[in-house]
């Protein structure tokens, strides 16, 4: 390869630029001839839009798939995973095995989730089975913990739907939709604190599926002690681990930002719980990632010019079962 790689990016982040330059690549603007384009999702969308008519040539790659949102939008991820399970179920695939309670043995990787307002009735039915349970409401199209709240009474959700309806008379648009999930109220605590995992997964192809797990994932810790008490439902520092939320907490430490490496987690779990269960947990996390990618692989536009780096948010419960919470960038 005699010619130099040319990269373009619309995110002037030093972590990107430094890494590109370290490889001896040269920066060009997006209008020029680039080999490698690191874009935000909107740019990718416009590049692939029909009106644009831009055709990627053989020596060009870009960091998103055109319909990346199949996995990264909270509602679509749930839809895709549910559909995938049903398909496997129909063909009585061994992976779709269920236990005596009717739960999937291998595919039970996301908390029970419903779309609101669409699945409202299904949700009410499920809620009544366990009237004291806590649920978490998240707006589909928002990130970084915005608009998230917890409920443990049906009246709270009725009030929410009244409030949101009274503000406008039109039917809720897709971006006003919410997902409601069973809240993992028995998270694994370390040092008494709640945390979630951020794992990075690189997908270079969906058909056949090729994905790579990044070794240096991390745990994000809440700065405040976890409590199950319902009085604390409003204290988001207790429940949400997003750095963007925790940053505003008084206890935020800028040295490490509440982040702990996956290798620390592994060492801790091996030390306190044993090697076997720890290995099993990490196997399950890998499997859960593959499963979620499989679930969307048929719907993804498998453009060979695309790759994607996903950030997986995973919560581990006190029985060391991993739960996929959502997938971001």
């Amino acid at each position, binding site marked *: 390869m005699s010619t130099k790689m040319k990269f373009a990016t619309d995110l002037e982040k030093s972590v990107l630029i430094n890494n590109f330059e370290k490889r001896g690549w040269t920066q060009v603007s997006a209008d020029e001839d680039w080999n490698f384009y690191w874009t935000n999702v909107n740019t990718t969308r416009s590049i692939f839009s029909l009106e644009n008519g831009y055709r990627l040539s053989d020596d060009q790659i870009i960091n998103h798939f055109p319909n990346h949102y199949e996995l990264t939008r909270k509602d679509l991820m749930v839809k895709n995973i549910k559909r995938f399970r049903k398909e496997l179920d129909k063909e009585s695939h061994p992976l779709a095995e269920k236990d005596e309670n009717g739960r999937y043995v291998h595919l039970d990787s996301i908390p029970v989730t419903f779309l609101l307002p669409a699945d409202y009735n299904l949700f009410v039915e499920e809620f009544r089975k366990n009237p004291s349970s806590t649920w978490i409401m998240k707006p589909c199209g928002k990130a970084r913990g915005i608009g998230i709240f917890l409920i443990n009474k049906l009246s709270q959700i009725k009030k929410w739907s009244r409030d949101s309806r009274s503000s406008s008379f039109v039917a809720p648009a897709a971006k006003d939709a919410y997902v409601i999930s069973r809240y993992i109220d028995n998270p694994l605590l370390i*040092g008494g604190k709640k945390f979630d995992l951020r794992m990075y997964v690189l997908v270079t192809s969906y058909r056949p599926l090729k994905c790579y797990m990044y070794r240096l994932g991390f745990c994000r810790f809440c*700065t*405040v002690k976890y409590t199950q008490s319902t009085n604390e439902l409003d204290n988001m520092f207790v429940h949400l681990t997003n750095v963007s939320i925790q940053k505003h907490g008084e206890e935020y430490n800028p040295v490490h930002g509440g982040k*702990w490496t996956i290798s*620390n987690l592994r060492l801790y779990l091996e030390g306190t719980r*044993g090697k076997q269960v720890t290995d099993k947990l990490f196997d399950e996390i890998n499997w859960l990632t593959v499963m979620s990618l499989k679930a969307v692989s048929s719907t993804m536009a498998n453009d060979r010019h695309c790759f994607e780096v996903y950030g997986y948010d995973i919560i581990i419960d006190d029985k060391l079962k991993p739960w996929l919470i959502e997938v971001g960038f």
Partner: protein
Amino acid sequence: MDPKINEIAASISEIVKKLNGSTLYSQLKRAAQKEVEKPTASLATLKTDVVEALKTSGWDRLLRNKIFAYLSSCQASLDQSLPFECQKEPLMYMRKAQANWERRILKSMNSMCTELSIPLARKRPPEEQRALLHKWNEMGTEEPDLSHFRPVYAPKDFLEVIISLRNPNYCGLLGPEVDEKPSGGHWGLIQVPLEIPKLKDLQNQFSEFAHGHGHAGVDDNLDVPSEAFQNERNKIAKKVLDEKRSVLAQYFCRNGCPSGHRAEIWQLALGVTVNHLDVLKYEQLKGYVLQHDLLVDSLIYKDVKLTAVNDDYYFVFEDYLYQVLLVFSRDTSVLNHFAQSSAMPPKSFIRAQKEPSGTSAEQESSLTEAIPVFDVDKLTSPNQSNFNYTLIKSKPTFPPHLGICDDEGKLGQDEYAVVYPPNGVIPFHGFSMYATPLCYLYAEPVGLYYIFRQFYTRYFHRLHAISSHPQGIVSLCLLFETTLQSLHPRLCRHLQEIGCQPLKIAFKWLVRAFAGYLATEQLLLLWDRVIGYGNLLLLPILAVAIFLFRQSNLFLITSASGVEASLADITTLHVVPLIQLVLFPT
């Protein structure tokens, strides 16, 4: 007669004495009684039957483990004919230096009290006690203003003192004046003559590091994952745990523990069990923390905030550290270790309150505050359980005077002296790092507490007391300097020429037993060996290895600060191959 026999006899009688009052003794007695009460018991074979039954039911192992723990905690049986202080430390100049150092610490604490006008201890009002209890699991969120507090001392202050140690009876071949200069035969900072092991002795002692022995930390870390080695070690670990014998567990640690079994192996090797009595004891100590606010609490708090909270590996455990270290400061059983150490626990005196008239015995007896007290008279004999509880006034409990007599009231009288803090240990900058690595093994504060206490009273207390003990910090420093010089004189010369004393860099590693400097996994592998060999000699060996390993880098550096900077981050190092590099170079 062989003096060895006397020694053995002395330690047997000592152990028997210790066992007599222990819980295990009454448990054994009860178990034996049960055997006797069995209808099958026959008078003729009673003795052998009972002994046999105790063996098969596992009591025999518990007894062995207990004896093993006693033997490892008081290594040399002390010569009873010597005065007590000589048993603690045979060299007078060491005793004096330690006493001076203790006085300095106390002075510094006293002046902090005076400056900030805070008492050494104060009783918490009931509301405050309740509030603290409520916050017990999240003390880290409390943010009291600690900006005026400063650590009582840092390792580098302590190093200054160690460097200044001189043996008044010692005179170099060329006379005392010449010996003062480091350019004389003795190049290092440590100027006292102590016997330290030669490389040959070390090779004998640590023979398991020779090539051909499988090691966790090397053989589980190959590029080709060596499943076979791990499986084998895991299998042996399980066997050792099933056997429940401390001595086996300790030996097993020499080659490193598999991470999944380390917690239990360490407990077994160190003889730490956590039963319901221990949980109760922990709760009782926690009660003492709630009742009184001590100045050392602020020091502990400050230290955790300065060290663990800013540490990538350990910040998660902040709250657990308070739950361990505060309780530790109230634990009078920690005082027992002073019998093995050159140090003396600091004392404070109770100021006699000017009581309103009519005060008398009944008023005295109505005082409700029990604080553990160290009974000075009994300190002269290490064999008795030295400690009891005394009633102490509740109001402005202690005056801000430590160990210094005062002419007012009853100050200065031993009967009014209390050990302060109750465990006799004044934390220094970085003290909490002794506990942090253990958080990776024990998920519950109680289990964590007891293993930490054992580690401290067995090993770590030697790292900040001046003594001639072979495990003491002075000997370890000397071992470091001597070994480095004998293995690589050229490197030493280079460092000397650029004005860098290696010990100034290695000292902080040694004092903390490398906690907070190595990656946690590597640290645990190192502490495996501390337990396995029952000593701290590998700490200086590792420090030497780090200098040797980085030598090509060090030779390029031309300033002391440059050396400091190049050795500031040692988290990427692997301890076992490094130790092998020194002990058994290929």
